[in-house]
């Protein structure tokens, strides 16, 4: 193929990068950019922002199934055209937000969204939409599904999404492997493997770049080996922490297991600097069966934690603030969850997480 033909066959990309947002922004927001004075929360799922100019904009937030088929996407657009002003945005938790310039548009829009099965809520001190990953639907290393876990759980906490029943907002996340793409959450439901990878030695030398797999292991438990006369890898199973970090660069090191891949629940992750500094989530429960299609055991634990938090925390306390006030022994007492040796950190810097004081609540 000549050079000219190559140019015709391949259209060169226009490297435009991140598009300009202002062309898609509601005119009231464009006009008052950087000039907002305050906001109010007229009702769950609705925000009212008022600018110094006196302009106001109402935002209606709705939860969706996140993986949108084009029919649902068009339906959301139809609703936006008919009942709102044709401008939307998405929150980082994949809720859709409609912005309207008159209060009178709020009610009919909510009615229409709810009529079509979307759920208005997720603002202020609610349980927000669970932020999640791809899972079995599309990921190459998942130990569980993501959309399915989230659908099953949101069915159970939908009243908390629609209402303002919590002391402060609750951000939940799920992750389908221990890399935890779902991120930090007040409550996180994550995969936890419990057995070392099962290695298909016939494939390792063809599929895996062995030195980089060795380098990937956080505890140096992997070493090169000759197995049945072929170059492969072996795992020191006593050292192995079953994290699955070797699996992405080396798929023949299968970490997922129908029985031994479990779920774990973590609490107290908080991204905000409000009151205390941001915090990472801490393990509270593990060994939970990875039980499709509705994962009832994981949901039951999440609901237990939510109930204890709702009943015991003070206004504005996130789960991390609440636990800091009441202490971990009381957390385990109130939630009825067992405290085990696995809750005690044995990783780098572990002793910083131990109690080096006589501060004990009796």
């Amino acid at each position, binding site marked *: 193929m000549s050079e000219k033909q190559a140019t015709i066959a391949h259209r*060169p*990309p*226009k*490297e*435009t*990068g*991140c*598009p*300009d*947002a202002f062309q*898609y922004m509601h005119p009231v927001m464009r006009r008052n*950019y950087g000039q*907002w*004075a*305050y*906001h109010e929360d007229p009702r769950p799922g609705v925000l009212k922002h008022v600018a110094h100019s006196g302009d106001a904009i109402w935002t209606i937030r709705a939860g969706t*199934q*996140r*993986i949108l*088929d*084009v*029919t*649902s*996407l068009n339906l959301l*657009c139809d609703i936006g055209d008919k009942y709102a002003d*044709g401008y939307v*945005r*998405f*929150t*980082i938790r*994949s809720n859709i937000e409609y912005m309207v310039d008159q209060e009178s548009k709020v009610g009919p829009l909510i009615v229409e969204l709810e009529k079509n099965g979307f759920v208005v809520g997720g603002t202020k001190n609610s349980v927000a939409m669970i932020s999640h990953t791809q*899972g*079995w*639907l*599309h*990921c*190459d290393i*998942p130990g569980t599904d993501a959309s399915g876990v989230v*659908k099953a759980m*949101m*069915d*159970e906490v939908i009243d908390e999404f629609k209402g303002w029943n919590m002391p402060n907002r609750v951000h939940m996340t799920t992750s389908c492997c221990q*890399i*935890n*793409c779902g991120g*930090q959450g007040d409550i996180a439901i994550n995969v936890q493997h419990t057995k070392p990878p099962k290695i298909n030695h016939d494939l390792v030398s063809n599929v895996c770049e062995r030195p980089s797999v060795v*380098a990937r292991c956080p505890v140096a438990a992997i070493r090169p080996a000759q197995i049945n006369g072929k170059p492969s890898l072996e795992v020191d199973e006593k050292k192995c922490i079953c994290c699955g*970090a070797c699996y992405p660069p080396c798929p023949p090191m299968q970490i*997922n297991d*129908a029985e031994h891949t479990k779920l774990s629940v973590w609490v107290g992750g908080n*991204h*905000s*600097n*409000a*009151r205390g500094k941001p915090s*990472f989530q801490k393990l509270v429960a593990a060994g939970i069966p990875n039980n*499709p299609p*509705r994962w009832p055991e994981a949901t039951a634990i999440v609901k237990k934690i939510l109930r204890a938090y709702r009943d015991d925390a*003070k206004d*504005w306390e996130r789960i991390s603030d609440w636990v800091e006030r009441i202490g971990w022994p009381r957390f385990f007492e109130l939630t009825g969850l067992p405290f085990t040796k696995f809750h005690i950190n044995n990783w780098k810097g572990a002793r910083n997480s131990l109690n080096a004081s006589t501060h004990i609540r009796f």
Partner: protein
Amino acid sequence: MADKHVTPMLDELEHGPWPSFISGIKRLRDQHPQERISGMANSLLGQLEHSYETRKGYWKGGTVSVFGYGSGIIPRFSEVGDAFPESREFHTLRVQPPAGNYYTTGMLRQLGESWEKHGSGLQTFHGQTGNIMFIGSTTENTQHFFDEINEYGWDLGGAGPCVRTGMCCVGAARCEQSNIDEIKIHRTLLNNFTDDVHRPALPYKFKFKVSGCPNDCVNSIERADCAIIGTWRDDMKVDQEEVKNFVEEKGRKYVIDNVITRCPTNCLSLKDDDTLEVDNRNCVKCMHCLNVMPKALSPGDDKGATILMGGKRTLKVGDLMGTVVVPFMKLDTEEDYEKLTELAEETIDFWAENGLEHERCGEMIERIGLVNFLDGIGLEVDPNMVADPTTSSYVRMDGWDDEAEKWFKEKLEAAEA
């Protein structure tokens, strides 16, 4: 379409009040006029049901890209493609959204139409990094889809060891707590590194996230290699009339319990006349009192950003928060923006040079120490960078006098400036 796969487990996810993604995929299978799309949806449901039954995933990665780029597509080839042939190739295109995730319904429809033409008809707004994810296309169609949407203003995001798609909060467009122009910062940084987004050549991923205030709604400290967070350094604004109104409405006990005593540095005092006294010198801009009383309290006028670097999730040394490397930076003039871009370039260059394969910037800082990192990117040490000074005496300290002199000299220069 081949016979419809039976999906008894997935069917269980059609019950309950939350919108069901399974019902959505079934709509594509049962109602979509294009046989290509309905067939793809049928195979996808079949494979997903198989995953639910066996509790295993069956997608494998590979190498797929559009002409001229090495990034932006997540290739997925089915391991069970013989049983579910129509979704045998099911690649995702990561497309960069407008900063702040704004759309008109017209543009959403146009994107949806293009995707119906070339892909599965399934999309997500947005993935965890921040991309629009168009899920499910053959290798050939990834190019056609990209060509079509690229013509009307959309470009691919990052995937692999490269600068990733950025994220910013709703910010100045709709939030009274915004202290910076999040959209401008986001676009300035991302579009400065377009080449590094499209052609993966870095040790690992690098993420920019921009939050307009310390509430950090885009989780930048926990998730971004470079977090830019709006803040202010003068006094917060207090509308005492609104404070009084708030006290009257909520009661003193509520205000004392939920505002005054919650201040992490004990800066607030409710006076006898129900106005608020603020010790601004010791306010750390945590945002709590502004969150509770948004009508009465607002950020000050001398606004700018705090920059933290090195945040990341678990793989491989465990979760790391970002660390303050610039306590305060004005972001008003074009020169200010140039300084920010230069800092980002210095950082990425230094990390590209010194990071190990698959090592995030934060892990490199962990390995070489903050002081060496700062030295590498040309920043001076500052007490705002530490929670505490070192508690260990096992540190070599010759050269103390020079460092102390440097500190006083900088203070003098800053005072003169």
